[in-house]
């Protein structure tokens, strides 16, 4: 049957199971947009292509399916860049499609021409430039396969306008993707398995480092089974939150720069680290030379280039975590680690005393109260999409996730502005679930235009702004390390309640602790999107904190409760 490139494009996306696409039209995508009219795929018109890129990412993380964003050539394509880099750092299965000027014009600095495959080469898993209509279908198949297989990541397809317009006689065929150089399905040797099992059985103080890879691999049950059988406590990375039930007695909480003190101490004391689908990021390890000095390390990871990259390990099992654990579990015996667990509990009890949420009400509203209340009211079951900065760390510390894929945040790249569009994407992935966006007053202003997208789509996303009038995380670093010289961090924001109202949404302002729960409940009851502007303590900091370059157990702790109250 005769079809244009644009028609082939939509049919291929449908065949890949795409139900929603986030995009913004332009000159170089006019043929694609023209053919959209007859497609079953729902198109969400964003207000800025960066929004589309984060929505595709949020969609992918909430659903595990490939998220897709579409932009025109030139500025449309370059506006996607931040979102593509975000998706790469956090291994998010995404496909980005950009229009390109007609192939005879490429290289002639045509209107809205940019070398997007050149620009995105280092921030994509792979990318393609299509100049021939015959390449559209096989390329889309390869792109989706690459995006979701192995270690997932963003794939970009740049399609020239003439390829979109050309007509060929075409029928869909489901030939598998031909990628001779792509062999992501590594399997470790049996001898390595045996050594690993022996090491696990000999450990006295083992610790599981639970990473994002557990969620991507879908190995939650296996990890739970492994942890329970071997009585091994579990520490989470930021992106690993939710991979292991947060309220489980073996769950310790988050590790790293703003991790729990007892977690970092436990890592330093451990004699065996089991790194499950994590990559020893610098925010997790602190000073490498002082990291877990007593521990042997077993790294289970699908990406071979992560092995021995940051931390030298004793055994590396390269492959799919779920598959490896399934193969390993039959040889794992029941082990008792009561002493070790008691040792960690002693550390935990001591540290929790300084937790701000246990402080008496001194009339001030702390972010911790907001997140803690949100966790309690939503029973820990909402999908929480946080932005970047203090709001992100407080959310990670005070919202406990029992279910997988309910914690979504930009970890690796730390992209401010991710929260709101990320939350919109998550809502499209899980329309029946409660979604909360948590952002600071800085981050929300970066992508605030997407409130219009929410209004146009008529979706319900709850938005909690932790408004402290500062770029809080940078302010905190200035307070600790730059003598409180608050350079360019005080920020005068708009009236966010009015901003919400201007978009036809509901806004609520909360300034005291006793209004928090009511506001959250009101937002949940409201059928439309509600933005709550929480006016929180202006100069509060995220504790504990490992200064950069320090060992992870050298943490800056929250000052004693009395002094906090006096200061404020």
């Amino acid at each position, binding site marked *: 049957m005769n079809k244009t490139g644009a028609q082939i494009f939509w049919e291929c996306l449908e065949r890949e199971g795409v139900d929603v696409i986030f995009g913004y039209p332009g000159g170089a995508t006019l043929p694609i947009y023209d053919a959209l009219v007859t497609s079953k795929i729902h198109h969400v018109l964003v207000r800025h292509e960066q929004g589309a890129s984060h929505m595709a990412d949020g969609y992918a993380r909430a659903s595990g399916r490939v998220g897709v964003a579409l932009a025109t050539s030139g500025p449309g394509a370059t506006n996607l860049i931040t979102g593509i880099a975000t998706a790469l750092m956090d291994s998010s299965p995404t496909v980005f499609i950009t229009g390109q000027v007609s192939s005879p014009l490429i290289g002639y600095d045509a209107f809205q021409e940019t070398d997007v*495959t*050149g620009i995105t*080469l*280092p921030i994509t*898993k*792979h990318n393609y*430039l299509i100049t021939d209509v015959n390449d559209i279908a096989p390329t889309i198949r390869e792109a989706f396969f*690459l995006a979701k297989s192995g270690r997932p990541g963003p794939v970009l397809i740049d399609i020239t306008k003439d390829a979109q317009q050309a007509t060929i006689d075409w029928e869909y065929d489901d030939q598998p993707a031909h*990628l*001779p*150089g*792509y*062999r992501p*399905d*590594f*399997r470790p040797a049996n001898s*390595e398995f045996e050594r690993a099992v022996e090491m696990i059985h000999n450990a006295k103080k083992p610790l599981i480092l639970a990473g994002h890879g557990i969620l991507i691999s879908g190995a939650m049950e296996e990890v739970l089974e492994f942890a329970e059988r071997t009585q091994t406590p579990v520490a989470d990375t930021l992106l690993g939150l939710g991979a292991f039930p947060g309220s489980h007695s073996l769950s310790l909480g988050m590790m790293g720069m703003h991790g729990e003190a007892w977690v970092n101490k436990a890592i330093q004391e451990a004699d065996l680290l089991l790194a499950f689908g994590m990559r020893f990021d610098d925010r997790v390890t602190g000073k490498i030379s002082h990291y877990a000095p007593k521990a042997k390390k077993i790294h289970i990871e699908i*990406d*071979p*280039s992560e*092995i*021995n*990259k940051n931390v030298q390990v*004793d*055994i*590396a099992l*390269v*492959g799919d975590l779920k598959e490896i654990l399934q193969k390993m579990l039959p040889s794992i015996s029941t082990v008792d680690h009561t002493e070790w667990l008691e040792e960690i509990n002693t550390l935990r009890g001591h540290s929790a005393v300084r937790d701000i949420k246990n402080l008496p009400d001194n009339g001030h509203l702390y972010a911790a109260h907001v997140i803690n209340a949100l966790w309690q009211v939503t029973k820990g079951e909402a999908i929480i999409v946080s932005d970047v900065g203090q709001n992100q760390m407080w959310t990670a510390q005070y919202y406990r996730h029992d279910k997988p894929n309910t914690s979504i945040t930009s970890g690796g790249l730390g992209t401010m502005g991710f929260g709101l569009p990320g939350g919109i994407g998550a809502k499209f992935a899980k329309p029946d679930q409660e979604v909360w966006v948590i952002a600071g007053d800085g981050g929300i202003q970066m992508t605030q235009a997407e409130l219009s997208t929410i209004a146009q789509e008529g979706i319900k996303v709850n938005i909690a702004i932790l408004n402290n009038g500062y770029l809080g995380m940078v302010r905190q670093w200035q307070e600790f390390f730059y003598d409180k010289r608050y350079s360019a961090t005080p920020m005068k924001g708009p009236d966010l309640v009015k901003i919400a109202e201007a978009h036809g949404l509901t806004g609520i302002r909360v300034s005291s602790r006793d209004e928090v729960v009511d506001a959250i409940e009101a937002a949940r009851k409201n059928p439309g999107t509600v933005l709550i502007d929480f006016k929180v303590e202006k100069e509060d900091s995220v504790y504990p904190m490992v200064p950069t370059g320090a060992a992870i157990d050298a943490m800056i702790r929250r000052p004693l409760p009395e002094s906090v109250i006096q200061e404020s």
Partner: protein
Amino acid sequence: MRHTFVALVEDKPGVLNRVVSVFRRRTFNIESLTVGRTHQEGISRITIVVDSDKTDVVRIMPYMYKLINVLQVEDLTYQPHVNRDLAMVKINATPENRAAIMQLAEVFRARVVDVTNNSLIIEITGDEEKIDGFVDVLRPYGIIEMVRTGIIAMERGASTLINNMGENQNYELPIEFKMA
């Protein structure tokens, strides 16, 4: 110390850029790079030489493998291999000293490929040291221009990169990942 990597890659536009980007991004300096076709259609072969004193060479193979278009990578440094460089040297040569220069060329088994009244082009192949040695002895005569291809390398014996690729198809990890 110098490390020699050879890679088989898909012969497609932009692939060289992807390979080179692995080095560029990590500020690894490439000392020599050659690319050419192989006897198999659609497959190109790349030889890259880097200085391991300035480069974290153990990271290179894993990063190269991450590239979708890279079919096979090997580090030939510690394997018996042959490496060759080709140079063409254009040199001032008068009728008076031409014979002397040509005699030198003969000692180095180099070939004269162009002669004019006042110049010669000499072609020489060999490993780098041999070529460096030849260039040094020519220098006093006045080198006008010189070009070198950069190093190409091949494993000794019957094993080939393409055969190894077939073996590696099933989960064989590159050597860096094999633990003792």
